[in-house]
């Protein structure tokens, strides 16, 4: 008799997803899948709208990192109004960067402190009542407060650059609609403790050290859990530096060989294909020249720290060197090291934020530029969860006629499915009793990618869990059901 296990919904991730695992009579894993069960349709309903409305409209895809969508769409619209993304006014580019690094900072802090830390602090099979942010607040108050305040600082940056903490309007085609006043700058730079740039750098460094401390005593778990070799893809600056706002596309294989050589992202369709599978609303991207079987890749913090040649801020660079040394300079394919990479990026974001705040260009007056109009634009940016593509065409009346988005989590679809399979084989295969802790292990693997399954503003956190066991005739033979899960 075969069994089917369903984990629905996956918790402590953004959005709605479910996992199904089929076992045969001996309890071997026959099939495992992460299903993204939501359908959005933004690519369709922006059609027919004026192009300048698009950045503000599409950011509603997400409540966690709307700035990524705002900026990716704005970069595409820069091209349409005839302004190369590298030719924005210094004020516009730096304000956008400040907005983006602020968002990175808050999003990464949210993931580590609110979503991931309960698994690390209490263990993946700790009681569900404890394994959540409330549990962290009860037993590690300082850490919980730190997480909340780091997120708050990032949100304040977004408010002062985009106008609102969530779903602002700061980036518009060809530039921005406001600069940063000296008062706003000082609020972020010299704000009352702890809400200032220096404290955030210090806390970000503490978070990296916290992870390293945990790693030292849980080396086996962190290094081996759901680890597998893969390709990696991200934007890098033209000189190879880590850059989350603009650059060229680079991909490397599991040994560090370049398989995409710093190409112009406007030509992404030449390099990236997307496979459709009947059981998921999310496509499966791959590098065309390697094919569907071998061309899949990871994106996000781990990929970015693998593809870049260096990090252009001193403290993060030092941490990156230690990170690279751990794998002797080779790409890091250890899934749980994504948390380490994410925290190094958080530190980098804090350093960049401080550098930007002391730059007088933020008080400049040239906000918008305009050139010769084009009818097609591609904008690519590194969102917290990975590389984000926005591609639009407009008609003679300035109305959108085509939109194509490849959202970060989409790239990680195949890697997340492989992680689920690996953990299922390790934790569930051959087991007579399926425990809640075993199922959480599956979610821990998914959570490492910080997926935004719907890229939406809802369905995060404490959700009901249903595990159903079916026989090979699809008859329900057992069910485990629980509310208020961590």
């Amino acid at each position, binding site marked *: 008799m075969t069994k089917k296990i369903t984990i629905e919904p996956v918790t402590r991730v953004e959005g709605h997803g479910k996992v199904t695992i089929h076992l045969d009579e001996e309890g071997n894993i026959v099939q495992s899948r992460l299903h993204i069960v939501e359908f959005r349709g933004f690519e369709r309903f922006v059609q*027919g*709208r*004026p192009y*300048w*409305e698009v950045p*503000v*409209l599409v950011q*509603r895809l997400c409540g966690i990192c709307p700035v990524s969508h705002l900026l990716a769409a704005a970069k595409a619209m820069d091209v349409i*109004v005839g302004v190369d993304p590298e030719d924005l006014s210094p004020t516009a580019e730096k304000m956008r960067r400040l907005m983006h690094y602020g968002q990175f900072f808050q999003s990464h802090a949210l993931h580590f402190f609110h979503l991931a830390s309960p698994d690390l602090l209490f263990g993946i099979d700790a009681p569900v009542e404890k394994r959540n942010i409330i549990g962290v607040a009860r037993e590690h108050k300082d850490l919980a407060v730190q997480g909340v305040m780091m997120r708050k600082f990032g949100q304040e940056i977004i408010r002062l650059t*985009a*106008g*609102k903490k969530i*779903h*602002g*309007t*700061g980036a*518009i*085609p060809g530039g921005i*609609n*406001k600069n940063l006043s000296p008062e706003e700058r000082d609020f972020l730079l010299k704000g009352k403790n702890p809400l200032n740039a220096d404290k955030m750098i210090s806390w970000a460094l503490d978070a990296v050290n916290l992870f390293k401390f945990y790693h030292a005593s849980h080396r086996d778990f962190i290094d081996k859990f759901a680890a597998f070799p893969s390709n990696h893809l991200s934007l890098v600056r033209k000189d190879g530096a880590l850059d989350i706002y603009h650059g060229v596309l680079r991909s490397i294989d599991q040994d560090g060989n370049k398989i995409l050589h710093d190409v112009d992202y406007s030509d992404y369709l030449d390099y990236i294909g997307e496979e459709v599978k009947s059981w998921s609303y999310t496509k499966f991207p791959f590098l065309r020249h390697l094919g569907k079987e071998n061309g899949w890749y990871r994106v996000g913090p781990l990929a970015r720290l693998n593809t870049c040649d260096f990090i252009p801020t001193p403290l993060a660079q030092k941490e990156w060197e230690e990170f690279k040394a751990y794998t002797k300079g080779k790409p890091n394919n250890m899934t749980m090291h994504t948390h380490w990479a994410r925290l190094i990026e958080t530190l980098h974001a804090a350093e960049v934020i401080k550098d930007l705040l002391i730059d007088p260009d933020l008080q400049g007056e040239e906000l*918008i530029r305009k050139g010769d109009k084009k009818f097609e634009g591609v904008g690519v940016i590194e969102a917290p969860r990975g590389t984000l593509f926005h591609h639009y065409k407009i008609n*003679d*009346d*300035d*109305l959108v006629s085509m939109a194509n988005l490849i959202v970060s989590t989409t790239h990680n679809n195949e890697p997340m499915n492989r992680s689920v399979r690996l953990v299922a084989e390790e934790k569930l295969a051959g087991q007579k009793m399926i425990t809640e802790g075993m199922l959480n292990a599956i979610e821990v693997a998914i959570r490492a990618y910080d997926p935004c399954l719907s890229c939406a503003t809802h369905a995060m956190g404490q959700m009901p869990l249903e595990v159903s066991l079916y026989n090979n005739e699809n008859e329900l033979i057992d069910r485990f059901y629980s509310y208020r899960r961590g």
Partner: protein
Amino acid sequence: MNQILKFKLDGVECMGYKDQYITNAAAENGFYIPTLCNIPGVKPRGACRICNVRVNGKLMTACTTPLANGMVIECQTEELKDLRKAIIELMLTEGNHFCPSCEKSGNCELQALAYRFNITVPRFKYQFPERDIEASHPKLIKDHNRCILCKRCIRVIKDEQGRNIFAFGKRGNRITINIDTELANDISDENARMAYEICPVGAILLRENAFREPIGKRKFDHVPIGIEMERFHK
């Protein structure tokens, strides 16, 4: 010199002038009567009906009713507040108003009234009408999804020869306000901007002008609509 008239508004003794409409007289006495179609200096039409008041017990539109001596006007009764709220809700459900992506958000009078009347969910069903967007004109765009047929544009925007640039098209519940294609080609920048600004919603748009005003600087970001008129009475 205009003749001075006395009237009572919600029990308060007020004064106004002969030939003055109730809306304007109320404003001068520190009362705000909401309206979406009325513009100072332009002949009123009573199109939106939000300014309904009871004059000597009878329901009248304040923007089209001239003041008379001894009038007793009721404005802020529960019945009238609910009537106005219902009209605003009808407007919100009759068109396709998606504030999150509308460039008029923060400057939109309909949105501001919805906030003022605490409309969190309308009592009527959304109609979701299928409407198009007229975007072939060089300076202006007419988004029929958002038009509330207030006629402000028809009454105010004229070319140098006094011809209407906006006019009604179709009839009955399919009625629309359209842009005259030929006249719109020659519309001045000043007139185009005025059309954008007098539109109480986001139905008339200036090409490539969107979201230039940052959040925090928009008309209704910090104060509710009408508060500037409510000097003495709220």
